[in-house]
């Protein structure tokens, strides 16, 4: 196999298909084959022709010898015909036979003419000798008939003896002639047989030669025609199977070149299309994957790899559920089951797990993949990591709520401020009046004094409420100085009075680092929380525990009580301004506390068990942070 690099605008690929053509093309091959076969036929014909002549000559010789033999026999018969009547005449003295003499002569003459004509060069002297013998016999025969048998018997007998002698000679000569003729005949037969055999051998060889040559050529040519077709077939099968890695290598122009070129062009444009689609799919910032009908992943985009942590190699061929570890595939299942398969499932929120098993919230849309007939061949799902979006939405919501809350608080603050101030004026008047009355009432009027005291006490609580309101409306920025929280707590506690049956336990960690804080505001926090705790304990005896602890870089302050606890439905509203469960108080203590802690960049949490008590946990940052 040859490797050849095929280049075009977009791709550089290693080609690993065998070359399309090797050696001459089909047309020259066919021409060569036909030419070879024709040549073979011509050669065969020539050989046949040549051999035919030889055979023909051989048989002609044989045919030539056959009338010769007959002529010789005729001559011999003629000689006998001449001797026999003479002999008879001598015996019987009756010259009857002489009447046919002319016919006999003519017969003999023709026989000799034939004999001469057919005689070979070496036979001619023999024929001549036979003719001489015949002439002598004829002359003697004529002599005999000229005699009168009764008179010249003796002479006739003498002549007869000569004639017999001549007859014997002629027979010998004829026999020689025949012998010679047989020799010729034999040699001709032999020649003919030889020629025939040789011809047959030639023809057989030629036949087999032509057969083998023809078969060889046919095989070669058909193979050479089929080979490129076979390669085309292999390539087409590969392409059908989705392998577009190779291209046909065209070594030389041939009949299939343009087909092969079109084929290569097709491969390139297919590759281009596929690459383009893949490039587009991979360029999509949102993850995309496809599955077949068995929910096996068939495509896994780059964005998918980034989000899930699985590489495409790992994911391809895996079950959808194994990779995503979530019900992302339910989308696809749902769409397949649904009657309206043309309608995609849009924007479904799902929790997905990545390779490290981190949960990622995603927004997924699924649609069906259909082949050209409209049969479902799988599904395609696009999804989006919405964790950022969700976080942002939450932040936005929180900020919005915060804004609403702070705006509400600002309005409340302004309202509280003006109401508070305006209330102080009449309160001052009431207090003055009460004072004046008190100064005028004698000790003999204890009930009046009691009522005056009640008025004064209520003025005090009203003033306290106004203080709270005003304090909330002007939560000042804390004046932060470095302080040691334990000392602040201890000094604060000197100023805080609780009921006698409420015990305050201190559990302070001396290792806590310094923090930045405002002593007065922290005191306010402690006052609020301890007063709440005291209130939660109610009329029973109870315990308040104040704990400080170093927690990493942070300082944790915990205020626990053994009071009644907080109802679960109230926990959420606890820090809202004007939320209160007390019969006395306007519900600003915890709101102020929270606002102070927020200004200290701290955090306040609580855990509460109904009937057992409440823990407020405040976390402050250390000075260094």
């Amino acid at each position, binding site marked *: 196999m040859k490797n050849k690099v095929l280049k075009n605008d977009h791709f550089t690929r290693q080609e690993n298909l065998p070359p399309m053509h090797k050696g001459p093309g089909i047309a020259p091959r066919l021409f060569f084959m036909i030419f070879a076969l024709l040549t073979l036929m011509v050669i065969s014909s020539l050989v046949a022709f040549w051999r035919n002549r030889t055979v023909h000559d051989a048989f002609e010789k044989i045919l030539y010898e056959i009338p010769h033999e007959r002529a010789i026999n005729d001559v011999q018969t003629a000689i006998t015909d001449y001797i026999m009547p003479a002999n008879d005449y001598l015996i019987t003295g009756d010259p009857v036979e002489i009447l046919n003499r002319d016919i006999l002569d003519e017969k003999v003459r023709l026989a000799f003419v034939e004999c001469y004509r057919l005689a070979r060069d070496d036979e001619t002297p023999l024929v001549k000798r036979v003719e001489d013998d015949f002439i002598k016999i004829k002359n003697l025969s004529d002599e005999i008939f000229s005699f009168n048998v009764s008179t010249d018997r003796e002479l006739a007998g003498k002549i007869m003896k000569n004639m017999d002698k001549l007859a014997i000679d002629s027979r010998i000569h004829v026999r020689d002639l025949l012998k010679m003729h047989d020799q010729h005949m034999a040699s001709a037969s032999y020649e003919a047989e030889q020629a025939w055999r040789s011809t047959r051998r030639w023809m057989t060889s030629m036949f087999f030669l032509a057969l083998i040559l023809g078969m060889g050529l046919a095989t070669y040519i058909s193979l050479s025609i089929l080979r490129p077709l076979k390669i085309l077939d292999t390539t087409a099968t590969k392409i059908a199977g989705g392998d577009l890695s190779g291209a046909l290598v065209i070594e030389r122009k041939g009949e299939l070149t343009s087909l092969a070129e079109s084929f290569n062009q097709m491969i390139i444009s297919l590759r281009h299309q596929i690459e383009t689609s893949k490039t587009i799919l991979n360029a999509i910032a949102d993850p995309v994957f496809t599955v077949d009908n068995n929910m096996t992943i068939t495509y896994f985009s780059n964005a998918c790899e980034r989000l899930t942590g699985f590489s495409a190699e790992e994911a391809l061929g895996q079950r959808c559920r194994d990779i995503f570890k979530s019900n992302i595939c339910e989308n696809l299942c749902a769409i397949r089951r649904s009657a309206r398969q043309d309608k995609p499932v849009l924007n479904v929120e799902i929790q997905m797990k990545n390779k490290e098993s981190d949960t990622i919230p995603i927004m997924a849309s699924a649609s069906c993949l259909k082949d050209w007939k409209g049969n479902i061949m799988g599904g395609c799902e696009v999804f989006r990591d919405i964790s950022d979006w969700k976080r942002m939405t939450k932040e936005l919501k929180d900020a919005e709520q915060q804004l609403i809350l702070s705006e509400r608080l600002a309005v409340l603050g302004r309202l509280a401020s003006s109401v508070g*101030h*305006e209330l*102080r*004026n*009449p*309160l*001052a*008047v*009431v*207090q*003055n*009046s009460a*004072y*004046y009355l008190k*100064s*005028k*009432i*004698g*000790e003999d*009027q204890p009930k009046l004094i009691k009522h005056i005291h009640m008025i*004064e006490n209520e*003025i*005090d609580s009203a*003033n306290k409420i106004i203080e709270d309101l*005003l304090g909330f409306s002007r939560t000042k920025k804390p004046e932060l100085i470095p302080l040691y929280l334990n000392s602040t707590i201890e000094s604060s506690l000197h100023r805080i009075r609780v009921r006698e049956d409420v015990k305050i336990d201190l559990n302070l960690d001396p290792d806590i680092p310094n923090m930045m804080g405002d002593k007065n505001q922290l005191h306010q926090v402690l006052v609020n929380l301890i007063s709440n705790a005291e209130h939660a304990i109610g009329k029973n005896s109870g315990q308040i525990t104040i704990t400080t602890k170093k927690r990493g870089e942070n300082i944790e302050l915990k205020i626990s009580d053994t009071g009644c606890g907080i109802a679960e439905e109230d926990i959420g509203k606890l820090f809202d301004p004007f939320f209160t469960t007390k019969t006395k108080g306007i519900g600003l203590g915890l709101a102020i506390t929270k606002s102070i802690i927020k200004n200290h960049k701290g955090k306040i949490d609580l855990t509460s068990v109904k009937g057992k008590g409440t823990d407020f946990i405040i976390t402050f940052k250390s000075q260094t942070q």
Partner: protein
Amino acid sequence: MLREKEPILSLHLNPKPNKNIIQVQNNDKLKILVVDDQPGMCETLVDIIEDAGYFIDSAENGIIAIEKTKASKFDLILMDIIMPGKNGVETLKEIKKFHPQAIVILMTAYTAPDLIMEAQKAGVYECLGKPFSPGRLLKIIERLDKEKESNLKKNKKVCQ
């Protein structure tokens, strides 16, 4: 709660007929002016302070207060800060111009830090947040009265 040791009198309140007598009797005592746009405030303070044996008058706004102060020099002026027309601090400044010896105590329901700062610059004696205890106010008055008395004695000694 502050509790003062005050003379407990019988409820036979009849301050007005006694007014002149007290005024005459206590000529050397502290002369006090209450300035407040709220009539109740003025009336109650007048009653309390008058019964304690001081000369007291009231004005319902700054302009009247200035006029009254010009007419008879008051030793102590109790003045609300927030009033229609001239506010307490402005009135204080004006009074200080022609009667620098006047002691001014400002009373306020509002905690307006900038106004208080201004008042301190102008020479306010004290700021009292409403509602305040009248007993505390009386203590302050008593102290100022003693100061005045001793000052007068010194002056007399100087004259003699």
